[in-house]
């Protein structure tokens, strides 16, 4: 039990430390790579908390897909790999105050509310693929299907946003054809 505790604390320190590097590093690409470390450490935390399927989904979706998307976006926006001086605003001190206030308020609330509570990891059932799959398709079917509609909407939205110029050219071509027809007739 203490081994799990020590391991969780180590993973938590890794996650928080690399998250700090994500928001403070001066190299844009390094921020994406430190984000990989944070997300991987969090996947380890999920494993220790018996959420096995969530851990693998985290690795697949976040480390696999989201970070690759972010790196692609960095590439497409021609972000420099050299250190950038003005990557944070001049008002970063205020952002720091807000962040410390958030941490203080939320942390105080959680400590006041849940001090002394213990997670019974030995008695918890493992949230593997079978257990989570049964829960999703027995109880949470409706939100699951709604979520698929949301993903479709996001897909269509991303396509519309990224191909607006090409569609405009097509439309102009058709439009000019109609215009010429009117002129001749």
């Amino acid at each position: 039990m203490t081994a799990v505790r020590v391991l969780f604390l180590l993973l938590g320190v890794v996650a928080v430390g690399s998250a700090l590097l994500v928001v403070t590093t001066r190299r844009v690409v390094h921020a994406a790579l430190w984000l990989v470390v944070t997300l991987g450490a969090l996947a380890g935390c999920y494993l220790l908390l018996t959420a096995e399927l969530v851990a693998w989904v985290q690795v697949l979706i976040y480390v696999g897909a989201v970070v690759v998307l972010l790196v692609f976006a960095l590439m497409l926006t021609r972000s420099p790999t050299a250190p950038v001086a003005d990557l944070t605003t001049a008002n970063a001190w205020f952002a720091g105050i807000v962040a410390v206030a958030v941490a203080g308020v939320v942390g105080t609330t959680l400590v006041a509310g849940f001090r002394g509570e213990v997670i019974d990891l030995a008695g918890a059932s493992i949230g593997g693929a079978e257990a989570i799959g049964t829960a999703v398709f027995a109880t949470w079917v409706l939100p699951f299907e709604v979520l698929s509609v949301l993903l479709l909407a996001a897909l269509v939205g991303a396509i519309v946003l990224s191909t607006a110029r090409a569609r405009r050219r097509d439309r102009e071509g058709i439009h000019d054809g109609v215009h010429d027809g009117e002129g001749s007739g």
Partner: protein
Amino acid sequence: MPLLYPLLVSTLLFAIGVYGVLARRNAILVLMGVELMLNAVNLNLVAFDTWHGDGLRSGQVLTLFVITIAAAEIGLGLAIVLRLFRLRAHVDVDRVRDLADREGAGPPEDVMVADEWADGADHARDLVDGSAERMGGGEHVDGADQARSTQPAGSGGQG
């Protein structure tokens, strides 16, 4: 394991994400801050699910839903960021101040691709044409022509 361990880790992650969203200037780094906050919430959900131990697995299922929504959000967010980059040739959120409420605010200085703005005029013309034709009939055709003649002269030479 004490419940406070994951809760405090997630609190710190959330605060760091808040700092990232507020302090970073690059729009992609802002999105990374959003991802950090979402992950903090996920850790909270998993911790409370294991602690509570209900048979419905509500916390872990909700975590999967949040991960899905985060993937949709990052896809749309990056599409918007790339569109911003195509328009301005930078993704610096501090310099995107078109909607700022200032006295005597002129047009934005750093617009690179000027004809993107003509998009709006074209689109408005299309809308006018379309509505005129849809309201239909021959008597509105000259109205549509009039609307077409008010289009900016610069876009007439295209095509």
